[in-house]
């Protein structure tokens, strides 16, 4: 079996360890003898990843991505191809980003959500987060660092319930978003290495959609990942 991962804008959108998500997905496939190719555009990809970006880089991406490319990814997401959008990408795939001053910045409209920045006087949402996946109750750990407050629209489900940390907006107690087989999240960490079952879920879904059959991934020895994960849960989970 093989998997084509689309890593969108790796040079412009790869702040703070985000590439670790691509490394994690790639290795977990290769350890199972699944061939992986990483490409930089979404066409014919089986799995999509987009990471965070600084403001100026985000504007350059928007000029290139909004329109045809965004519509292609939107169709792929709606057809069940798994995608992971983290940090600035998570905001960017929504409807818009409302800065404290100035006009709304349009997003790709792939996820039904929007983000508002409440201004420099409001505190930035920073820190280690421990949360629980809504369906399985498994814990997820990560580190958030965002000024924007994200609100989900009716088409989206949150990814996790926050046990300790701020989440999407510091208000409703949830973090992240899900649509079909795709995930958005503010989590640094990066998200996947210390939450390997999430990585495996994305890989499994990608293969199931690609090969149109039920897939069971061979288990890997995740002792180390679990130790690193549990360390955060013990230290920061209330």
């Amino acid at each position, binding site marked *: 079996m093989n998997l084509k991962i689309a890593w969108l804008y790796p040079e412009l959108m790869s*702040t703070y360890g985000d590439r*670790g998500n691509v490394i994690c997905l790639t290795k977990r496939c290769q350890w199972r003898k699944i061939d992986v190719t990483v490409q930089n555009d979404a066409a014919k990809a089986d799995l999509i990843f987009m990471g965070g970006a600084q*403001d100026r*880089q985000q504007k350059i991406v928007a000029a290139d991505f909004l329109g045809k490319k965004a519509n292609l990814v939107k169709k792929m997401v709606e057809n069940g191809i798994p995608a992971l959008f983290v940090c600035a990408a998570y905001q960017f795939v929504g409807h818009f980003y409302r800065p404290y001053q100035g006009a709304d910045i349009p997003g790709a409209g792939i996820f039904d959500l929007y983000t508002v920045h409440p201004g420099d006087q409001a505190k930035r949402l920073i820190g280690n987060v421990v949360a629980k996946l809504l369906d399985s109750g498994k814990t997820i750990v990560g580190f958030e660092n965002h000024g924007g407050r994200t609100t989900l629209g009716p088409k989206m489900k949150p990814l996790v319930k926050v046990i300790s940390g701020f989440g999407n907006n510091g208000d409703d107690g949830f973090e992240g978003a899900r649509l079909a087989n795709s995930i958005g999240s503010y989590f640094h960490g990066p998200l996947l290495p210390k939450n390997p079952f999430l990585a495996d879920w994305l890989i499994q879904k990608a293969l199931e959609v690609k090969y149109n059959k039920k897939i069971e991934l061979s288990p890997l020895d995740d002792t*180390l990942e679990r130790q690193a994960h549990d360390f955060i849960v013990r230290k920061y989970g209330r």
Partner: protein
Amino acid sequence: MTVLLAKLIALLSKTFNLGAGGTWPGEIALKLDSKILSKIVPKNVVLVAGTNGKTTTTLMIKTILKNAGQKVITNASGANLLNGVVSAIITSPPGGWGVFEVDENSLPLVLHFVNPKVIVLLNLFRDQLDRYGEVDVIAEKWQKALKNFTGRLVLNADDPLIAILGNKNSLYFGLADRKLFSKTPEHAMDSQFCPRCWAKLTYDGYFYSHIGIWRCPKCGLARPKPDITTASYPLPGLYNRYNTLAAVAAAKALAVPANLDGFSAAFGRQEEIAGHKIFLSKNPAGFNESLRTAICLSPKKLLLVLNDRIPDGRDVSWIWDVDFEMLGKRQVLVSGDRALDLAVRLKYAGVSAEVLPLSNAVHQADFILATYSAMLEVRKLLTGKKIL
């Protein structure tokens, strides 16, 4: 009045042996008079700023000035916020010269109170995101702060974000030896885009990270021809060539001989204690260079130490931007608050890692790469003394 108070604080600090390099004397003085720096600053000042290399470069410039017969005050211990600079002045014997390393975010503030002869700007790399925010924002703040600067800028020509800050009066340093170009581009690259027009830069070659011989194909902005490209290098490592060139360029700007006799490594920066070499490594670009340098020196055993306290940055995600894959089949030791994160990162890099408590690990390794607070702990364990 406040100068008298400052002297009193200094006397108290000395009497109770409260240690040079702390920031509390400065903290107190600033509470009494927020403008005190402008009143006590030495006549001649050199400021050194940048993400990596401040401490080493500052010490090199201090050495150069001392060899030229000057009395020099520095904030040697890396206390580089406003309170650290004030503390250094208060607790040091008087000197005609001050050479101070300044934290990236503090440079604009310090420039309110000081009019330096020379400012050395080394580089800008992605550092702790939770403390510093974005590299572009820092560069912009520097540009604003330097508008009224009448002294001389000494700039790294090979870093586009630094080079663009120059004017007709600036002095540039950089590498010219193309044999030093790196074979493969690193991941941990920032500023690959023109700081003026945002087009993608083209490079003849990269020396490391985004540092290299660069040009913008769109607006024509290009690496200025460096005035200083060679020196005699007292420390190994490509990054230390830059630190040395910066110090030599500063010497030229100050019209003193670039005499580095008597220079030895700053604490924690390739400092050697009891047969252990310590490399401060606190962001992807710096860590990559430390790894490269350490590997070249043929270590018997490498120890990597990762903490996530405030001076280290609470978010350790950045370790995934470090190219640990270059360690190959070596077996390394890992320690620190976030040793497990390091171990996971190394697992995915194909490197085998043994997690050990720091007090054990420190004695088993001849080369130790550590984040800031971890470096302090390592030094304490190896010397049996507290530094700050």
